[in-house]
């Protein structure tokens, strides 16, 4: 009895654990033949968790649809889709380690890129080393794609494709706008897009009266906003993620700041931003890479944009935003490339991805020589009546720009 209490119990537990691990390993090996494994390193906890979870929803929706249709077809045989998730806790160095671990230990076939330009760029060094085709669902900065990599693709067009049409719309429809103030989160994408805005503003004859960065995690922006208010810009352009922008918007209202135009990127594209900001979201302008109002008839698994929106709504009871749609698109593109390659050979799939020239629910997809998509026309929109109303492109325009943000 003494043996049971002191030494034997841990031994028995240990044997049971080893047996269980062995059984689960053999079970997964038995199934591995009919499964294609996609690695998805994501920030599921930490400051970027809201964005990471959105990306996960997109992948899950695609995997569910692909498996419902029997899986991915290669040479007449159907392969089920399995997504291997790993949480890198919003920590970029850990995203690199996680990506390497997925390739060397988890035996994934293909990879989805980490969230955001910074982490996607860092992790791409590993996937390139092992020649694993990777599609980044949330990386737009050109610095990610200027490394000469062959195996990295991205579904967001460069940042200037967002700021250029926005500036032109404001210039043509709000002639009183002469001065712009830019405030950016000190992070790769938010800063890069703010710099594009600065360029675009100057090129269109606007005076940039303020350009500053705020540190990640800043809670109080009152001093910064007071200074911007004193400069009386007609256009206030602020970048960051949902939390930053909600906080800044609330503090702008507190300070009774008013402007002809207030643009925020990338919060207003998300439904949770619109719900949280409530009345203060009204008339905010923004731009993103996709919008549920688009009407594309695609050849991918989702077919049309409206079908994607319907399927998403059925699964998550909310409307999809561009982050979720882009993640689902990455899966759908892999599916097409694998089926066209007729093989799981990484080089063949990579070549098929590079050759893609198709229309999807997300829009036309064609990658440039650097791997970044160059076929999209990102929509500009404005929150009107608690709904994002598309102002551009003309083909899907839903309303006119309204001036004045209180």
């Amino acid at each position, binding site marked *: 009895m003494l043996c049971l209490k002191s030494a034997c119990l841990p031994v028995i537990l240990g044997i049971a654990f080893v047996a269980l691990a062995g059984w689960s390993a053999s079970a997964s090996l038995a199934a591995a033949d009919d499964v294609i494994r996609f690695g998805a390193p994501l920030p599921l906890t930490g400051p970027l968790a809201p964005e990471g979870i959105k990306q996960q929803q997109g992948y899950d929706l695609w995997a569910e649809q692909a498996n419902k249709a029997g899986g991915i077809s290669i040479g007449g045989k159907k392969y089920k889709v399995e997504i291997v998730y790993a949480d890198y806790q919003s920590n970029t160095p850990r995203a690199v380690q996680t990506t390497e671990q997925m390739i060397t230990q988890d035996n994934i076939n293909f990879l989805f890129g980490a969230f955001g330009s910074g982490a996607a760029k860092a992790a791409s060094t590993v996937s390139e080393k092992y020649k694993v085709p990777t599609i980044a669902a949330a990386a737009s900065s050109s610095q990610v794609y200027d490394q000469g990599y062959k195996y990295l693709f991205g579904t967001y067009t460069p940042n200037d494709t967002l700021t250029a049409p926005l500036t032109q719309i404001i210039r043509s429809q709000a002639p009183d706008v002469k001065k712009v103030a830019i405030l950016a989160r*000190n992070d790769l994408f938010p800063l890069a897009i703010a710099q594009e805005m600065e360029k675009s503003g100057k090129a269109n004859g606007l005076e940039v009266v303020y350009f500053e960065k705020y*540190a990640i995690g800043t809670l109080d922006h009152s*001093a910064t906003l007071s200074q911007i208010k004193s400069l009386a810009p007609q256009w206030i352009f602020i970048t960051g993620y949902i939390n930053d922008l909600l906080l800044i918007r609330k503090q702008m209202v507190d*300070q009774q700041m008013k402007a002809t135009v207030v643009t925020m990127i990338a919060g207003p594209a998300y439904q949770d931003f619109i719900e949280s900001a*409530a009345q203060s979201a009204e008339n905010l302008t923004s731009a993103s890479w996709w919008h549920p109002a688009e009407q594309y008839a695609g050849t991918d698994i989702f077919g049309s944009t409206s079908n994607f929106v319907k399927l998403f709504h059925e699964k998550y009871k909310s409307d999809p935003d561009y982050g979720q749609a882009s993640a689902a698109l990455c899966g759908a593109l892999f599916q097409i490339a694998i089926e066209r390659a007729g093989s799981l050979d990484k080089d063949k799939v990579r070549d098929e991805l590079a050759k893609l020239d198709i229309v999807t629910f997300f829009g036309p997809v064609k990658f440039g020589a650097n791997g970044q998509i160059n076929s999209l026309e990102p929509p500009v929109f404005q929150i009107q009546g608690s709904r994002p109303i598309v102002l551009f492109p003309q083909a899907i325009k839903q309303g006119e720009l309204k001036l004045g943000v209180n």
Partner: protein
Amino acid sequence: MWVAQVLINALVLGCLYACIAIGFSLVWGVLNVINLIHGSFIVLGAYLAWGLYQSLSISPWYVLVIAAPLFFILGYLLQRLLLNRVITAPVLVTLTLTFGLDLILNNAMIYFFKADYRKLTLSPPMGSISLFDVVVPVDRLIATASALALTGVLYLVLRRLRVGRAIVAVRLDRDAAILMGVDVKSIYAIAFGLGAALAGCAGVLMALIFPISPLTSSTYLGKAFVVCVLGGLGSVSGALAGGLLLALVEGVGSTFFGPSHATTLSFALLIVFLVVRPQGLLGRKGFE
């Protein structure tokens, strides 16, 4: 006029910082425990305010009355059952224990509330008042007044009540306090309970102003840490002075050097204080 605005902003924010830090300062000063769970207590208090407002429409001002005893009991039990077991161990042990507890509480909050950001939006909103172009949001103003009231109550407890005097006595000289018949373990638990209660109440007030997420706990903890070093440990006036100084440095720094350097400046000041005046603005030498 915007200079006046920056100063008013700093004054209001400084009081809020003091409110964030005062419980942390009390626990650090009296127990010599760097309580890393403090930030998560603040966030939990914010969730309490948010949850009660969303589900039962209970105003955050009333939630203060509920949060204080609830968090006191939570803190008291934590100290009695866990921390008192290692309180005499080197500071690294208590630091590790509170770090572990913080991980558990913070991840539990991520699990139950998700990492999404919530916002307590009063209906109707309280708006702002303006005087000669200087604008102050009413919710911040009331939160500031409440923060000052809380620090005032703590001051009175420490000065006037028997238990408060015992806390001060333990802080000044633990061994002498034991010789005078003070039940130190009980005083430790009460001090920790008070610290937790203040953190919970601070969370209720922060819910009115800042978004609520488990991810903000480290920011609150960082602010509390800096305020304590600047103001001095364990004293009410020290926390207030530290909070005001930090807010002023951040406000002025942000205005003249850009917002990305506001934090850099505040941490540079922290290092200067650690080197030149480790006891803080109002702390007494020997208690740093």
